[in-house]
């Protein structure tokens, strides 16, 4: 039962090694996709290459389905997953500025790391800019503190806002993704450069789209929010939970379950 770290399976030191491992694969796939190249990244904003949308949206849909199915199978306790809190105003302004920074600078934070690794000087400069931007933020923080915590809504999720269960939301996201991919393909056919765009078989794309919609539909029908599936979200005292925690014998030695407070770093 996951999340392993929050149930005390390993300690802080090991979590850092795991971070490096996850980061390695993260950086690896981003470079594979061509995300170390700012012309490839910004091409989406000139309707020439929608790789950014395809990668992001596919990853999001796979992860949404994965989390909900894991929760149904009892493999992960979603109540222990850190849900990012909503602070709507700073998120809107921050999002707009991030978008402008992305277009002007050519990267988002993680892709600039990958660009730097593949030898791009502009990637290095972008990173220096980010360090400097963070420093400015920290210096002016007392002045903008009010705005920074404005629009706080807690850890709300789309199911809470739209008042429908997360299975239906997942299904809608699947439909939206397939629709967005279809539009992206059509637009690329019109404006894209066929020489450089990666090729793919139409048959596999159709099968993938059908599979996505089917998996989403199953979730919408069985409703993963039903209490049957969230038995284990009861506090640690419950007997079922105690069983799950048992494998973590080193609990007595290292106070790992409580240690995760140190890394309660926000989002990114």
């Amino acid at each position, binding site marked *: 039962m*996951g999340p*392993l770290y929050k149930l005390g399976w390993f300690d802080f030191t090991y979590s850092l090694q*795991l971070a*490096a491992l*996850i980061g390695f*694969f993260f*950086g*690896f796939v*981003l470079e*594979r996709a061509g995300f170390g190249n700012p012309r*490839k990244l910004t091409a989406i*904003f*000139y309707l020439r290459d929608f*790789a950014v949308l395809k*990668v992001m949206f596919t*990853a*999001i849909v*796979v992860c949404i389905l994965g989390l909900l199915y894991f929760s149904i199978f009892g493999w*992960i306790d979603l109540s222990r*997953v850190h*849900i*990012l809190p*909503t*602070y709507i105003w700073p*998120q809107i302004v921050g*999002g*707009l500025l*991030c*978008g*402008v*920074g*992305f*277009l*002007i*600078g*050519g990267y988002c934070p*993680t892709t600039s790391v*990958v660009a730097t*690794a*593949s*030898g*791009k*000087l502009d990637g290095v*400069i*972008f990173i*220096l*800019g*980010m*360090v*400097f*931007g963070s420093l400015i*933020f920290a210096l002016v*923080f007392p002045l903008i503190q009010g705005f920074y915590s404005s629009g706080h*809504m807690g850890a*709300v*999720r789309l199911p809470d806002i739209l008042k429908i269960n997360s299975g239906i939301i997942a299904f809608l996201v699947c439909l939206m993704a397939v629709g967005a991919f279809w539009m992206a393909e059509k637009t690329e056919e019109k404006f894209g450069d066929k020489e450089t765009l990666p090729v793919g078989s139409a048959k596999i794309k159709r099968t993938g789209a059908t599979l996505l919609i089917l998996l989403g539909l199953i979730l919408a029908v069985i409703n993963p929010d039903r209490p049957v599936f969230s038995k284990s979200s009861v506090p640690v005292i419950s007997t079922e939970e105690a069983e799950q925690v048992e494998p973590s014998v080193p609990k007595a030695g290292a106070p790992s379950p409580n240690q995760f407070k140190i*890394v309660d*770093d926000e*989002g*990114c």
Partner: protein
Amino acid sequence: MNERYSNPYLIGVVLGLILLFSFYTMGRGVGSSASFSRMAAAGVKLVAPDHAKANIYFAKYMRGGRSPLMAWLVFLTLGATLGGLFSAFIANRIKGEVARGPSIGVSVRLWLALAGGVLSGFAARLARGCTSGQALTGASELAFGSWIFMLCIFAGAYATAYFFRKEWL
């Protein structure tokens, strides 16, 4: 000489599984922008330790007497650097250059990269995350604010694209 980039849908599926693995093991998603904020904090701490401790925002990185760099996301970013390096190496794509469109000079591009970096660094702190830590992670857990954030990134970039077309096209 450059190998063609991989199919974005395939990359998306693998990235989604990596994200899922992160949730399963750590109960949290990926991210990177906080690493740069922590670097700034570490830099200030090195030059002026009292100033770093007095700053309300940086103070949260100094908790527990640890270095601001002893953090999960910093190690993830280090890993991403190595992963990117490895991928670029096996595809024969490591090349010292300034990436830009054909109609823009090197120095203008570097100034714009700096400006974009400063904006992104500031904006990511304001929004409590970037494209990875807020958009990718938050959207996967269906967090409301993260979806709004993601739409705003695209809105901001599309709104600016016309004015900077010479930089890329």
